[in-house]
């Protein structure tokens, strides 16, 4: 019989991992659902963000969290530029998958060229901070990931729902020509949205750098499960990937705590298949 501590700690572990799935899925969901671009390069960008955090912190001595001040605006500009390129050549959603896969390979090669294929680990004071609640431990980097994921998801959701800018974005995503007829500048809003999505990848990069050892090839290990979180959560829905991510993370963690860890990867994809079968028309 597993102990209460084992179950509780595994539950926490699943929530934190799920928050990272949600954070990685946030930008992907927005670009897929609202811009009709399946941006595989989002994962590569997140890792580039993680490596930049590592570099700025380990070599230049920046506080890891402070690196966001540089990374977020740079990634915003990169995201907008990428969207401009994709829009300029009228790339279809399916072709965007291919183009951004190519971009992923380029970014991976760039990372490997600069930092080599060797593993990199960011050693920061944050890594040693953990809070004890009863018999359970809450590590600061994971808690930060949860806070960032929840804050950004809620802000984006509220922004899209309650602000004029957000409503215009939703209108443009729904029917661009009609939205344009009402004075919505669809091009500018698309650039803004893709910039935001890339900036979120930069934020996810910070969380990756604080919690994981980095290697360029690890870009691909996140693709499957984050795609599952995005699809289960609903395309273009800012809160959906976070909730779905936490459901997947908790399911995986509890599976690992109660049965063999090898069963854990089956959970996310089984959930995906069930959701696809149950609500295919809504995805």
């Amino acid at each position, binding site marked *: 019989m597993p102990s209460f501590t*084992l179950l509780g700690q595994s539950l926490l572990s699943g929530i934190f991992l799920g928050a990272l799935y949600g954070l990685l899925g946030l930008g992907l969901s927005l670009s897929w659902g609202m811009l009709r671009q399946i941006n595989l390069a989002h994962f590569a960008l997140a890792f580039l963000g993680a490596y930049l955090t590592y570099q700025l912190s380990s070599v230049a001595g920046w506080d890891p969290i402070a690196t966001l001040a540089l990374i977020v605006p740079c990634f915003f500009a990169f995201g907008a530029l990428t969207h401009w390129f994709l829009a300029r050549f009228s790339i279809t959603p399916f072709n965007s998958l291919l183009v951004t896969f190519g971009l992923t390979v380029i970014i991976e090669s760039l990372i490997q060229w600069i930092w080599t294929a060797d593993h990199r*680990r960011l050693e920061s004071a944050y890594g040693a901070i953990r809070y004890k609640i009863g018999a359970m*431990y809450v590590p600061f980097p994971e808690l930060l990931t949860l806070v960032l994921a929840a804050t950004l998801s809620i802000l984006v959701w509220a922004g899209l729902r309650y602000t004029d800018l957000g409503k215009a974005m939703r209108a443009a995503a729904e029917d661009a020509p009609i939205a344009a007829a009402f004075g919505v500048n669809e091009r500018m809003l698309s650039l803004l949205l893709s910039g935001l999505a890339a900036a979120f990848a930069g934020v996810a990069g910070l969380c990756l750098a604080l919690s*994981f050892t980095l290697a360029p090839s690890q870009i691909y290990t996140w693709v499957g499960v984050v795609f599952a979180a995005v699809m289960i959560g609903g395309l273009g829905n800012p809160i959906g990937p976070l909730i779905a991510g936490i459901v997947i993370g908790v399911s995986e963690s509890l599976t690992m705590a109660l049965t063999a860890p090898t069963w854990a990867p089956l959970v996310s994809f089984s959930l995906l298949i069930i959701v696809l079968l149950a609500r295919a028309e809504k995805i």
Partner: protein
Amino acid sequence: MMNSKRRALTVAGALLALGVAVPAVAATSGPPIRIGSTLALTGPLSGTAIIHKLTGEIYVELLNKKNGLLGRPVEWVLKDDQSKPDVARTLYEQLITVDKVDLVIGPYATPNIISAMGVAQRYNKVLVHHTMGIPSLAKYEMQFPAWSVGPNPEMTVPNTVFDALATTSKAPKTLAIVTSKFPSVYLMSKGAQEVAKKRGVKEVLFLEWEFGNKDYGPIANRVKDAKPDFVWVGAIGLEGNELLDAMKKIDYKPPLHFYMYPAPGPLAKLPEANGALAASIFEQHPPFTNNPVAAEFVKIYNERAAKAGLVDNSVETQAAASFSTWQVLEAGITATKGLNDKAISQWLKKNQVNTIQGRLRFDKTNNYGDDLMRVKQVQNGRWVTVWPKEWMAPGAKLMTP
């Protein structure tokens, strides 16, 4: 003045021991001997394959500085198999049929070696390889393992580890085995399970995960919950670091812990890994470095690895196995005075080769010889050999909590 003279003599001695003749007599002529291989220069195995690349480059450079092979210069035709066995297979075909290399050597790691072995068998090429982790799959009669782990490492290596632990006052009574399902790692972990049972060590936990697992939190929780005396971690690459990180987050430190095939540099640098055990065929300290060939290689490798920006610049199992591969091939060519695959193969089967990891022989099952694996431990941020006694680092002893 005296110092520089002594240094010069030492270097000259080392060079002579390496067979690196002084430039006046170091003349190669004729077309180069072309030796082909692939390495995982990109992809998930590239972090380790870079070690084999650096080692091969150093060896070929040293060879060409003396008389090359058979008086001819040596050219290493190296291709990138992208860490994929299917690509390795295609490229070995290409090396033999299109590039028409004279000889081939093995790629990195086990799945790619098995692919290359199939091609070598089809064309009757001798294949000396670096780090094949599953000896039972090496069926080709002209393949030769330069990583001397013996024909049954899944039994002999865990036995060596338990022998080492038995010498301490904290010999484990209970054991948790947590392991990746990466084939060569899994084989060893299952072996450890069997060896522990035979030795009367009680297994309190056995967990396995898929290679590429991201979340080690629940595994760490379960190990903590099981309260073992000894944790056997079947972890390739960074999996061991990830598990230790997860353990640190729940304020747990395993009392005794062993890692099968960790990324040695990153693990040694992790503060939580102090006291961690692993297996090794070579570490860069005496008595290994009493061999002048090894000492010279260590010196050059340290410089090149630093220049290449590797996190860990030291020579250990991977680099030593790689260096030994070239030593075995060179010995075969030199002894047979030719490039005939069959002749080299026959010579290797009947003879032993001195390498930096020890004396290798290929006369047991599947051309494996002795298990030369030793036990090493992280002590103050660096690996030191702690078992068996004759290979212990000077002043080192197996630390227990």
